[in-house]
């Protein structure tokens, strides 16, 4: 008996319909089909084992032009860490200038994920 799960890949706008299969009771790797590219398979395995998302948000700043500066995680963050991170970000106020890619938070809850600025701001 095979165990089967359906997913939709979110790696790109193509939105491949993925099927993951493995033996009932098995803890081995899932077999992925329906993916157009290798990212689909990687996404499915990650999603089934430890779902993560890229997080985007804004933080308050003292800039005249951009009172809210956009930020994002540099890679997907475990889902359970997202709400605590957002609540933390909304309490911050940062000084400019900042550069796109500059690190705001180095290691979110020891996940190895960084929060970086996603825009340049000089004034």
């Amino acid at each position, binding site marked *: 008996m095979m165990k089967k799960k359906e997913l*939709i*890949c*979110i*790696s*790109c*706008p*193509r*939105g491949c*319909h993925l099927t993951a299969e493995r033996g009932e009771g098995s803890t081995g790797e899932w077999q992925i089909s329906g993916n157009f590219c290798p990212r689909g398979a990687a996404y499915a395995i990650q999603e089934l084992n430890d779902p993560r*998302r*890229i*997080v*985007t*948000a*804004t933080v*308050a700043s003292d800039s005249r*032009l*951009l*009172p*809210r500066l*956009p930020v*994002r995680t540099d890679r997907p963050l475990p*889902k359970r860490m*997202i709400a605590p991170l*957002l609540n933390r970000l909304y309490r911050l106020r940062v000084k400019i200038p900042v550069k*796109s890619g500059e690190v705001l938070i180095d290691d979110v809850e020891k996940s190895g994920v960084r929060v970086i600025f*996603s*825009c*340049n701001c000089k004034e």
Partner: protein
Amino acid sequence: MIEDRNVDVAVIGAGAAGLAAAAECADHGLETVVIDREELPGGILRQCIHNGFGLRYFHEELTGPEYADRVVERAAASGVKFQMNTTVSDVRREENGDFTLLLLSEQSGVTRVHARAVVLAMGCRERNRGNLAIPGGRPAGVFTAGCAQKLLNTEGMLPGKCAVIVGSGDIGLIMARRLRWSGVEVKAVVEIMPYASGLTRNVVQCLNDFNIPLYLEHSVVSINGRERVQSVDVAPLHDGIPILEQKFTINCDTVLFSVGLIPENELAARLGVELNPATGGALVDADYQTSVPGVFSGGNVLHVHDLVDFVSEEAARAGRAVIRYLEGATAAERNPVRAGANLKYVVPGYYARGRDTVFAFRPLGVWASAMLEAELDGRVIWKRRCSHVRPAEMLLAELSGQLLNAPGTLEFRLRPEQDEAAVEEA
């Protein structure tokens, strides 16, 4: 004294389209000015702080502001001049074929720009509650999704505490997640079509991730509340008609509309540019030149795209055509192109013999697989199988000039091969 200034190319709009067209022109040594109302160039990308941009154009996944910063830097490096905080209040074509634009800005007051060519890159506006004439009261708390996005992402203001989103366009879906990530409850997304209007990945990561219900084939039949929104009435649709006996009420204090975009062609109308009723944008030839010589158009003001990457590519092609026009090349041949079965429209509206051309389409339905065909005077000259076809996703066809070797009428059509349901059952 009103100051006058001469340039080669005036580009109206500093979003992805305007910047791409301008960069091409400036790279070629043309004096190019981009004019925009906002203080910062980048257009609507500035408020789209989510990721998902640039996979095709930059081969990496960027947020809107990151994409904007890159295309702005590219245009600036090419020598494009930016005239920000500026409204084009009038534009007209002079007898000698040049253009005069009347500009208003807080910094420089009233100025005139004289240009040899104009690129229309004004983007879109959102359809709103008024356009749909949704019945009910007139309370506060009704926003277009983009307006709420601007308030939230650039001003840090919450639109309300508990929202219903009307329409499942991409902006609406993205806003559902943004609201949840801002501490705002989202009760439902209501869509009149039997499928989501936005990209599938957005349904997955913006609705399914948060267990937000998507009511397909439902319509908001009333917005209730006198001062602030108190609820909406929602009813299922049968053949497009709401079944009021089955209506139900969802309590909320906020309603967001994500019900489509309309190209902002008011300046095009002033120039007398002929519009295509199917797109709301200009009718253009293979050079993206409109019916008015010297006026070009690209990006969302030409037709609504789903990916900014395609906007950049299209507008860059328009920019390169401006260069040819100013070098004195003759206008592209105008052989008609028609959208046939299952296609809402095709852009450009004309082809030229021997010219490589990228055609863009909107399908009219959802199919697991369909054949996109091009027929020139009764002869199928090109075809390609497309999978996972849906109105939310634009289709492109790149035809080489060798195929377009005869005059006549070019018709594109989509022949459905497999229904979506058939695949899911399989």
